[in-house]
């Protein structure tokens, strides 16, 4: 029981609590069986019905869609120039011609905020996918193989888990992306993605591992093995579908927190760098003018916060819908 994981929002106590049946399941002693069986729906169908009624779900989904479109086609939203500015407009306050005003170098804040979505979202999405794939694979291997493989993989995960997140990414990024280096835009992005994923996969691995361990001994898996199903088939057909739901929920929330993490790193001056446009960079540049031009801080922060919240809320909504106990 070496993993009371702090970092994950998803793995509520059950994942790490080796208790017996005792504490769980609120008994519906009174509720007649027949009443519950009335409409047979699957867990997913139930969850969908639940989700459909939640305004929070629709709002966050709409925002996410908006941000993704913004990241893919920023020109749809603005015809302005996000990179080049005119110094005579430096820190001009928001007006009807430039809604969000101009930054220190006279660049249009509105266009920058729109174009900033791309870097933030791409970094967050790719890191999430990488983390899920790698952590998920490690978790399946550790959980399914058990024995020394599990022991070694778990210790390796512990090593990465033991590194404080911000500190770890700072060290990684300064090593490969320090002041002396001149990496290209895409290399820097890749490095940020890599450092986020390298420090996050252990959480996914633990989630997956405990989920595999829980289902591995289920009767239908044992039956499938007894019928001669191969390892690959059991994992693909039986284990994966069962573990997918928590993984998806966690992934959604992770996109949100990675957007925040990317911004934090850019803010500290070790993540993405100008001329790349990202919300974190904008906030970082704005912090010196917090007293005179707070609007410079406000707009990128608002976009950042909305994006992070949308993903986290979507994940939350799905999690609640998937967890019958919370109804």
């Amino acid at each position, binding site marked *: 029981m070496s993993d009371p994981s702090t970092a994950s929002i998803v793995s509520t106590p059950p994942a790490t609590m080796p208790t017996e049946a005792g504490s769980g399941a609120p008994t519906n002693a*009174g509720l007649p*069986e*027949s009443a519950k069986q009335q409409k047979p729906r699957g867990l997913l169908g139930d969850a969908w019905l639940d989700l459909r009624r939640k305004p929070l779900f629709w709002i966050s989904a709409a925002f996410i869609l908006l941000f993704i479109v913004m990241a893919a086609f920023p020109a749809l939203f603005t015809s302005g120039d996000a990179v080049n500015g005119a110094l005579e407009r430096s820190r001009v306050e928001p007006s009807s011609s430039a809604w969000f005003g101009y930054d220190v170098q006279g660049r249009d804040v509105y266009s920058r905020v729109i174009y900033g979505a791309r870097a933030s979202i791409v970094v967050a999405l790719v890191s999430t996918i990488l983390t899920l794939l790698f952590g998920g694979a490690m978790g399946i291997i550790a959980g399914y193989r058990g024995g020394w493989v599990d022991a070694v993989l778990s210790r390796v995960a512990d090593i990465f888990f033991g590194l404080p997140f911000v500190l770890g990414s700072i060290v990684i990024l300064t090593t490969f992306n320090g002041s002396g280096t001149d990496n290209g835009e895409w290399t820097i992005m890749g490095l940020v993605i890599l450092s986020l994923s390298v420090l996050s996969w252990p959480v996914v691995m633990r989630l997956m591992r405990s989920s595999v361990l829980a289902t591995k001994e289920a009767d239908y898996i044992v039956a499938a093995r007894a019928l001669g199903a191969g390892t690959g088939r059991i994992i693909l057909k039986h284990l994966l579908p069962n573990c997918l739901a928590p993984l998806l929920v966690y992934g959604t929330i992770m996109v949100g927190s990675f957007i925040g993490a990317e911004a934090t790193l850019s803010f500290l001056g070790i993540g993405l760098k100008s001329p790349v446009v990202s919300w974190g960079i904008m906030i970082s540049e704005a912090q010196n003018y917090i007293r005179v031009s707070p609007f410079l801080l406000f707009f990128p922060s608002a976009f950042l916060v909305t994006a992070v919240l949308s993903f986290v809320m979507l994940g939350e909504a799905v999690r609640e819908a998937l967890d019958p106990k919370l109804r």
Partner: protein
Amino acid sequence: MSEQSAAGADGSGRPSGRLLEVDDLRVEFRTRDGVAKVINGVTYHVDAGETLAVLGESGSGKSVTAQTIMGILDTPPGFVTGGEVRFHGKDMLKQSAEQRRRIRGEGIAMIFQDSLSALNPVFTVGFQIAEQFRIRRGLSRSDAKKRAIEMLDQVKIPNAKGRFSNYPHQFSGGMRQRAMIAMSIALDPEVLIADEPTTALDVTVQAQIMDLLGELQRERQMGMILITHDLGVVADVADRIAVMYAGRIVEEANVYDLYRKPAHPYTLGLLNSIPRMDEKGQELRTIKGLPPNLMNIPPGCAFNPRCPMAQPVCRETVPPLLQLGHGRASACHFAEELVNRD
């Protein structure tokens, strides 16, 4: 045959001298899928020194009735929509939360089915028994411990002193149920409700627990309500039996009468479904069909879709619980025929 109104044993609602009476109780569960009418006018009573067995399938409302008596119904989803529960003639449903609390444990106590989940896993068994002496009786820690060990002794737990400081999961199922019983009788209750006390246990242990319960009930002259779905358990212990179906009492009688000549087709079906030694080789007789959906109880008699004797009247009129004399009653349009057949 005197027809009896649903308003109470003597129709007037004044104290009748009964220890505990449930009178036309109605409870529904409001869920997001709809309203389930779980209890639809249950009336029964128990006196000091007698054992009433409440018999029924799961979902018939026997446990919910008990929870309502104890005041531990989960609200929501459960809501009492009508009726009274009188203890010493006073309607408990109208009493304050504090008054009801004082009755729990001292007036009416309850034994639960699954002792593993009913006992708090993180406190010792001894603590959970002694707690009542400390909180309710104001005893000191050491006195309460002494009394708790006495209680464990009374329910025949070997090495009671040593067992005092064990946790529930360290007990075997039977021993844990004994501890549960010790806890429930600690404050000397007048009524003991046992909700399927042996269902979770091995057959051999079941008999021991029932013996213990019977013994304690006689010694202490408690009124006992024994809730069960097991006809076999009932016969030895109960004085009277109330059979429940779809949230109503469908038949009430003393044990002898009920077994000899049931006055409701449902009871008849239950008795027939017990395998008998003299009918070896024959097919087991079961009651056809399923218990009704409580969100959509069929009109008329709730049992009519499954009843071999059903007539058109059964689909239209709800049969009232009619007294048949000798303290027996049946809620069937054809109760007379059933009793008078040979």
